[in-house]
């Protein structure tokens, strides 16, 4: 239960802090939160007996069983050890942080993040489910990202944050894969089950991959070479965060997970080779690099890396030799390194620099911190009787049988001593080394700031001296075996003790000659950040390369698409070609001849529309092709389709002519000049080849389709049989359109209606303040001449330009005769839709054409004036609404959508009134409205579009 309580407390604090604490002074915030963490520390400590006896409460609740995720937490020795470190160090850091931040809004943000982090970190170490663990793991990465980028204004901080997230997040992905594979291999994602299935797991074929993936995750998180470089850069974070996350807790998450899995998988050869190798390399590398840093935080970061390497190496030692040392090392390191980070933060605050070359003699301004540093430094150096000494002893003892490991460990220990000396002496005691650099006058810091580090430093002493009674009970349950910790070897002076004494001496010696090695110019090796940046920029240039394909040329896009389809479609044709029957072309009747002629005519006209290099002529050719196709429909015989085709073709021709008139001749000339000249000859051939191939494929389909006609049964048989009995129409096509597949029609007129609306909105959208009468400058060529010619019957200057000589008695008479006839014809189509060609759609097109004629004859202004009742857009809306209401009304009465409802009892002139009549009227109105809308839009004289 404690697990849940502490998670709830911490996450609530994370949410509440920024909400309620804005007015509270930051040191008070820190103090409060520190008390909370201390309370949690106490609570965890109280769990110790239960944990030791193995009766600690586990918490488990279902969460997402489908993906194996359960909300389960446990508390064993290992978890408890980490939990104590987290809450304990956390309490000290909170206390310190309260003084570190000047502005309450900064501190509330910080505290919110840090509380969330603490919660995540605790969840991580207490998680009883692999996925839960991973969730917490990622949580810590994200919060670390936010903390590193805490000073977001600073570009360096942002970059470091991003880099850290990439490395740990990327490792996290590997870890996720590893954990999922692990869970999948074990058949359960519960840690307890995994622990129980160790044998089976070690035999599993995926285990190598699983280990490698998990290692990548842990190495990135725990800053192992070669993934270490994010950690030094992470020092952009505020110092309390560095102390807490990047030294005491988060970077130990990898170590934690390794330690967690060590009992289960620690016997594998991969485990016992990879971990020591990477760990030792990291250990030595970190210790070496740390020495030559100039930034205090950099020194500490590399030192941390080095220590993390040691921990990883220890966990990788065979037969659990190093576990005890690792556990103690975690504790000791958390205490002294946390202290040192806090000190560095204070130094930074006071001296406004972290450059060790400039710093010096700070003992006078920061005496408390000097003492604290001395203690923590000595602990780090492994000076008895401090905690660090015990830790170092154990480490050396663990590797005492392995010469290489021992050597690395020894050298690193010595170098760590040097580092400790540098930290203390060069910052607090000795004068600045390079006085040439501008020195900062250090100022005093609030007194309370030293409490936090002071407590931690004191803990190093207390833990060292009281090691047996205090630390043993903590470590024992974590290690799982009988553990005896001692300050001095009871057997007397042993090898390990000698080694650590030697390290102290050598370290001091190295410090003494520091002027020598600091002056060395070492060859610059390829650094991690460089590799990282190179990798990122490599990925980026690959991305740029890919994006070049998005070159903005629609023709290229279309070509790629068509080519791809061709390749895909070629497969079944080639594989399945069982020899299509190709019947000979026989023309037996005049109708056949006619069909053949019309087919050829349509092809010729289409070809002409391609070859002609005048838009108008191409449009005419296209219209001719369309009419020919209409003829083909007629011969099918499909009179309904033919009718629609003829009408639509007429309208389409009007439309394209208008569009030609509305685009400037120069632009069109320029565009059409590219017809043959604008692309290379090869390009033309390429297009032709592609087109031919597609044509061939379609021909194959069509042949297959027509040759399969014999003996087919289709649902059309049912339509033929049922049109008259069920919906009372002779025209089966009409029956299908309005009833059997009436919904298609509802949607289709919606498409048409909104397309019209779109044209209107596009061409005539009102832009406030920009409405002006268009003076058609693009037609300047003829305007003056027209103006002269029209002078005599000019009414207003605007109208003058629109009044065309085309608006003459002949055309006017035609317009006024055709419109009522069109309406009459349309009514005929509607009322006899079920008995003859024509339906609501053709009716709409016909009235629309009648209106189009008016626009052609009179132009926009005059038409609007002469047909004041014409409001096209609401007509669309009305038509669609009517259609839908007609369709939905039966639903309200418990019948089907668009149910056929005949109106009986009316029998005049064979007109059949039914729900479909209303539907046809609706279709007609929508289509008529749509066409009129398009006409109105394209004849609109206003140039409203902001260019």
């Amino acid at each position, binding site marked *: 239960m404690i697990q849940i309580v502490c998670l709830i407390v911490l996450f609530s604090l994370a949410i509440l802090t920024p909400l309620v604490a804005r007015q509270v002074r930051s040191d008070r915030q820190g103090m409060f939160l520190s008390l909370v963490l201390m309370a949690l520390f106490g609570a965890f400590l109280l769990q110790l007996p239960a944990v030791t006896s193995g009766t600690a409460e586990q918490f488990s609740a*279902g969460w997402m069983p489908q993906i194996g995720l359960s909300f389960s937490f446990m508390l064993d020795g290992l978890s408890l050890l980490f939990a104590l470190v987290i809450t304990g160090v956390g309490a000290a850091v909170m206390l310190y942080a309260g003084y570190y931040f000047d502005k309450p809004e900064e501190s509330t943000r910080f505290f919110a993040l840090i509380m969330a982090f603490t919660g995540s970190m605790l969840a991580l170490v207490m998680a009883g489910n692999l996925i839960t663990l991973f969730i917490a793991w990622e949580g810590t990465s994200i919060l670390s990202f936010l903390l590193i980028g805490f000073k*977001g204004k600073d570009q360096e901080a942002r970059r470091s944050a991003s880099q850290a997230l990439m490395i740990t997040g*990327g490792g996290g992905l590997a870890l996720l894969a590893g954990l999922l594979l692990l869970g*999948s291999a074990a058949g359960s994602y519960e840690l307890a089950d995994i622990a129980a299935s160790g044998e089976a797991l070690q035999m599993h074929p995926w285990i190598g991959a699983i280990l490698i993936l998990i290692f990548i995750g842990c190495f990135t998180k725990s800053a192992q070479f070669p993934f270490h470089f994010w950690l030094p850069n992470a020092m952009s974070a505020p110092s309390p965060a560095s102390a807490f996350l990047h030294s005491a807790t988060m970077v130990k998450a990898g170590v934690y997970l390794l330690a967690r899995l060590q009992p289960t998988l620690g016997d594998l050869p991969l485990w016992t080779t990879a971990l020591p190798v990477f760990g030792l390399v990291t250990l030595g590398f970190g210790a070496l690099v740390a020495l030559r840093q100039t930034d205090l935080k950099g020194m500490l970061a590399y030192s941390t890396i080095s220590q993390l390497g040691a921990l990883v190496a220890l966990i990788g030692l065979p037969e659990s030799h190093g576990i005890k040392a690792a556990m103690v090392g975690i504790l000791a390191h958390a205490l002294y390194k946390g202290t040192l980070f806090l000190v560095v933060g204070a130094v930074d605050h006071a001296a406004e620099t972290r450059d060790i070359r400039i710093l010096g003699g700070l003992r006078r301004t920061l005496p408390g911190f000097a003492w604290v540093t001395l203690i923590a430094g000595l602990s780090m150096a492994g000076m008895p009787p401090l905690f660090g000494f015990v830790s170092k002893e154990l480490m050396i003892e663990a590797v005492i049988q392995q010469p290489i490991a021992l050597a690395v460990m020894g050298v690193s220990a010595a170098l760590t001593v040097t580092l400790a000396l540098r930290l203390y002496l060069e910052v607090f005691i000795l004068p600045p080394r390079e006085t040439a650099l501008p020195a900062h006058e250090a100022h005093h810091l609030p007194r309370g700031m030293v409490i936090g580090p002071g407590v931690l430093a004191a803990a190093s002493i207390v833990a060292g001296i009281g090691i047996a009674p205090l630390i043993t009970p903590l470590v024992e349950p974590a290690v799982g075996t009988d553990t005896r910790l001692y300050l001095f070897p009871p057997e007397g002076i042993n090898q390990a003790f000698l080694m650590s004494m030697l390290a102290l001496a050598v370290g001091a010696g190295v410090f003494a000659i520091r002027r020598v090695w600091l002056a060395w110019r070492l060859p610059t090796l390829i650094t991690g950040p460089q590799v990282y940046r190179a990798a990122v920029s490599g990925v980026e240039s690959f991305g740029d390369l890919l994006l070049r394909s998005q070159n903005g040329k629609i023709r290229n896009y279309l070509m790629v698409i068509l080519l*791809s389809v061709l390749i895909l479609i070629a497969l079944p044709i080639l594989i399945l070609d069982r020899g299509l029957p190709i019947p000979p072309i026989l023309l037996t009747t005049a109708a056949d001849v006619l069909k053949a002629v019309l087919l050829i005519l349509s092809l010729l006209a289409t070809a002409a529309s391609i070859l002609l290099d005048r838009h108008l002529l191409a449009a005419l050719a296209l219209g001719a092709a369309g009419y020919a196709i209409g003829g083909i429909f007629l011969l099918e015989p499909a009179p309904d389709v033919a009718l629609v085709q003829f009408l639509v073709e007429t309208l389409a021709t009007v439309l394209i002519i208008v569009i030609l008139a509305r685009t400037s001749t120069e632009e069109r000339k320029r565009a059409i000049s590219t017809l043959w000249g604008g692309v290379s000859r090869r390009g033309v051939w390429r297009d032709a080849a592609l087109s031919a191939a597609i044509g061939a494929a379609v021909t194959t389909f069509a042949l297959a389709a027509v040759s399969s006609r014999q003996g087919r049964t*289709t649902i059309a048989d049912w*339509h033929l049989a049922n049109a008259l009995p069920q919906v009372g129409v002779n025209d089966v096509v009409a029956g299908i359109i309005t009833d059997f597949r009436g919904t298609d029609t509802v949607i289709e007129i919606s498409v048409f209606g909104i397309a019209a609306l779109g044209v209107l909105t*596009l061409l005539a959208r009102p832009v406030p303040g920009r409405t002006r009468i268009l003076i058609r400058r693009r037609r300047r060529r003829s305007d003056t001449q027209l103006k002269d010619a029209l002078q005599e019957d000019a009414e207003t200057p605007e109208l003058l330009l629109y009044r065309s000589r085309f608006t003459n008695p002949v055309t006017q008479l035609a317009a006024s005769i055709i419109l009522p006839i069109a309406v009459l014809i349309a009514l005929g189509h509607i009322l006899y839709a079920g008995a003859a060609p024509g339906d609501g759609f053709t009716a709409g097109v016909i009235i629309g054409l009648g209106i189009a004629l008016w626009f052609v004859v009179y132009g926009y202004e005059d038409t609007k004036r002469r047909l004041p009742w014409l409001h096209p857009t609401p007509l669309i809306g009305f038509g669609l609404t009517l259609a839908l209401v007609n369709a939905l009304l039966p639903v309200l009465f418990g019948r089907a959508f668009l149910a056929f409802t005949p109106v009986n009892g009316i029998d005049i002139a064979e007109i059949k009134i039914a729900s479909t009549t209303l539907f046809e009227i609706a279709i007609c109105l929508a289509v008529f409205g749509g066409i009129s809308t398009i006409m109105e839009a394209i004849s609109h004289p206003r140039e409203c579009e902001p260019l």
Partner: protein
Amino acid sequence: MTDTLLLGPIFIPLLGAAVGILLSREKTIQHAIGFAAGVLAWLCSIGVLAATLNGDLLTYRLGGWTPPYGIVLVGDLLSALFAVMATTVIAAGLLYALGCRDQSVSYPAFMPLFLCMGAGLNGALYTGDIFTLFVFIELMVIASVILVAISDNRLGLEAAIKYLFISAMGTLFLLIGIASLYATFGTLNMADIGRLLATGERPLLAQSAAVMLMCAFLLKSAVFPFHFWQPDFHTTAPTPVHAVLSSVVVKVGVYGLIRMMTLMFTAEAPLIQDLLVILGVIGICFGSLGALRTYDAKRLLAYSTFGQIGFILVGIGWGTAAALAGALVYAVNHAFIKSSLLMITGTVSSRKHNKSAKIADIGGLGKGMVLASGLYFLGGLSLAGVPPLNGFVSKVALVQGGIGTDEWVVFGLVVGAGMITLLYMTRTWQLIFQQPPADSLKTKPHGDSPLAPTLLIGLCIALGFFASPLLDVAARTVAQLGDPQVYIRAVLGG
């Protein structure tokens, strides 16, 4: 009676659109009706899902005609799930539109077009007739083309032209496919086609129909090499439209692919799946890298969609029940994440006078927009699959489906691609919300309302913590899809 619910998500928005056109002068009423229609459609779709949860299918015979002679709407778990996803985002988009200050949103045509787009989408999901599918898709396409063309972004026009051309290719493929199916089986009802395909041999036309339908659906989902239109078209759309396009409209193709592979072309499915894995992987790479390198925050999200669709395709392509379920979960979660991210980006860029979301222009634009910053961050993390957000759940579900497929390279890529997502999302977040604004940056005091993205992010969080129901629905959906006879029996009876 519950069958009638199927009408709601299609015809309520359509009626709203019709009335909206009728009342185009009354903007307030029009918008109110539009939003109400969106909410009603949403409720209906939830009703459909609730009614199908127990494994029953809803079928509605339009006009009362017996299938396969008439058109039938079918609500199975797959369509119900996708429809809930769609209507949710559409309702959110409508909500965003109400608080949007774009010029284009104020046009009388906007609301009807938006509703038509939604109606077309829902119709495409529910219809059990392949030709009606085409008609609904066209409704959706035409509406979206216009919406993009009238966008405040003047390049919307260019994108609309390009899309209209490319979409015409998709329409052609679809129509050729439909024609081939009709030529072979003499029917248009998908269940009927499935029934006949399950019994008979496969002539050339049936095979090519499979290819053509697949191409059409791949194009609708902007899968490589049919993707060219997508970044242009999505990016230049008005924000609420972009949110719907990039999150749910692209899923129509995914839906179609799943439908055709599980209901009709079950024998061809393995071949198609292999192809989908390849295309999906290319999409993942292309989309992720494109997002990393493109020059516009909205375009980045469009490329990201390209990549995310790749993940879904890989899931479908892996073909295992778990992978397919993972793909479904991925699809749904991505819809909510992506739409919210787009809306937040829109909210931020609406503060600029030219509403540009160019990366060069928006550095520090979000300074002081705490809510937007938080939402964007959460959305970005979710997109990258960071727990405990819903994106994580989809990633885990998908990756678990990939375990044991022996496609380790793909598996690794799927896992690894999350890193690039993380990179571009955090980079952009830092850029917009952390970087100090340039001195020349002038912002408007008011932008679009962040209410809709807030709700959507809330949904993302909720779906992260309480994903069980979704996972459960996905698993049941996959189980249902496993036996096409269930669908066929429900539609054709017997």
